[in-house]
């Protein structure tokens, strides 16, 4: 499951992200963050963390920047 999710996210990274991506306001980028989170915390918590990160990744959030998986 975790591996499959990571595969999906990497598909996005390789395939879609170059088109409309490159907009991430964090480092590491949302997709990388999600992959790392899933690797570290498993499919369930990792995905949730990734989604939360995407939600935070909007122009109104002032606390952007370096935000690694803890």
């Amino acid at each position, binding site marked *: 499951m975790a591996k499959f999710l990571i595969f999906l996210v990497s598909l996005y990274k390789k395939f879609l992200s170059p088109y409309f991506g490159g907009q*991430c*306001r964090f*480092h590491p980028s*949302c997709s990388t963050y999600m992959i790392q989170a899933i690797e570290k915390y498993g499919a369930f918590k990792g995905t949730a963390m990734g989604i939360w990160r995407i939600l*935070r990744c*909007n*122009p109104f959030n002032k606390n*952007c*920047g370096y935000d690694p998986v803890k």
Partner: protein
Amino acid sequence: MNKNFIIAMILSVAVMFIWSEFFAPKPDPEAVKKQQQEQAEKTADGAPKNIIIAEKPAANANVTTARLTADKTNPEKTGSIANEALELTFSTSGGKVTKSLITEKRYESKKVDLSVGLAQGAYFPAMSSVFGAEPSYELASQSAGSVTFIYENQGVTEQKTITLKDNFNITVAKTIVNNGENAVEWTPAVSFDSQFENSEILSSYNKKFKIVAQNAGGKFDELEDSGDIQDFFEAGDSVNWIGVNYGYFIFAVISPENKLHAAAEIDSKKNLSRFTATAEKIIVNPGESVTKEFSLYYGTKERELLKQKELGLEKTITFGWTSFLAEPLLLALNFFYGFLGNYGLAIILLTIVVKLLLWPLSNASYKSMNKMKALQPKLKELQEKYKDDKETLNKETMLLYQKENINPLGGCLPMFIQMPVYIALYYMIQNAVELFNAPFLPFWLTDLSEKDPFYILPISLGVMMLLQTKFTPQTADNKQAKIMMYTMPIVFTWISLMLPSGMTLYWFVNTLLGIAQQFYINKKYKNA
């Protein structure tokens, strides 16, 4: 894994998906025909199989019941009855409706005949008869919105009345008058056999039909094409309503007093479905007469009309998981349609409104883009410093942004936010009757729920998306990424070739607006 391998994987998955979705061999039309013939034969030699026959005397009943036969035939007569929404053409043979044309103003031009959803040999409204199969009636009386058939044999008279109420509401009633010597047993029932395989009243994108029912407790249940040869569904002894849900339309038997027993089955191999709503068995003694009436709904799945009945029929309008979005969007679309009078224009207006709602998001990102320009020298410095260490460079760049309190571009959320709208539109076009056969432009986009017949829109979309990538400031720096930039327009065009033109219209206008927005911002900040 190397990059080329991944690209190859994605492309092959995409090809397989699209092939199976759109080009996979459809059931052989010859075989379908044969099936239908076989079925017609089955129903021709005797009672139509969808009729519940009440001729068997109950074993433990202490009454002698008459065995009635319909050995007398009457010549066939035809005619039609109508209200503001429906025009039913009837035949006295079986007391059936042979054509059910929707004449309601809004759908008038579409010339929808609901009868095409019936299985071969089946008819509407099929109601159980004391004579076994419904006999060849005589025409008893006819008014603008109502017709009564009558059949008399062996001292027993059966009267069938079909009445059009308001909108798509119909009642079918039978009166049994027993002037014979024996009691007559009768189980009043209405049944509906449907086959939608080649039906033109279904969306090309949603060929599934479902039997839906709600029990007295308000519990909604549905039986979907499950892939099994036969499936059986007992909705229990007390049913609010049971119906067959075919895309934009529904046929339902309604029982506000919750007294019907309902049963249904789906034969997914033959694409047949049948349901029967049965009332309690009645014994009609000599000298007695009994009347039983069923309320039916036979028409479009319009929220307002279904809601009027206050029985939860509107639950049959489903947009899958996108409901939370599709429902307000449909409300907006209908509102725009109210003063624009065209769903194409309504979709364009909807696109503009969604874009405006997202304006603060995109505007904020463009503003920060401008601020970033001022930082260029500092960024160059960093780039020099960490030339060989990309990881650190990215990290340092981000730290710089953080320190200066600016945000590069918009972030990940804005770009995901459009997607659900697009997908909700897909569900909406399949299920909202308002969009069924909705024309936009004559000769070209005559039906927004079907694909663009000349592929003009998908190709223009691809061209516009390519232009957009040209105008968007590039953050990617290598050749590989630049090649990838062209994949999205190509993939989108490819998919759009097969999607409803209403969706392509949305994405096309959205892309145009995106380009316009880009130009506006570029100009504004250039002068600033």
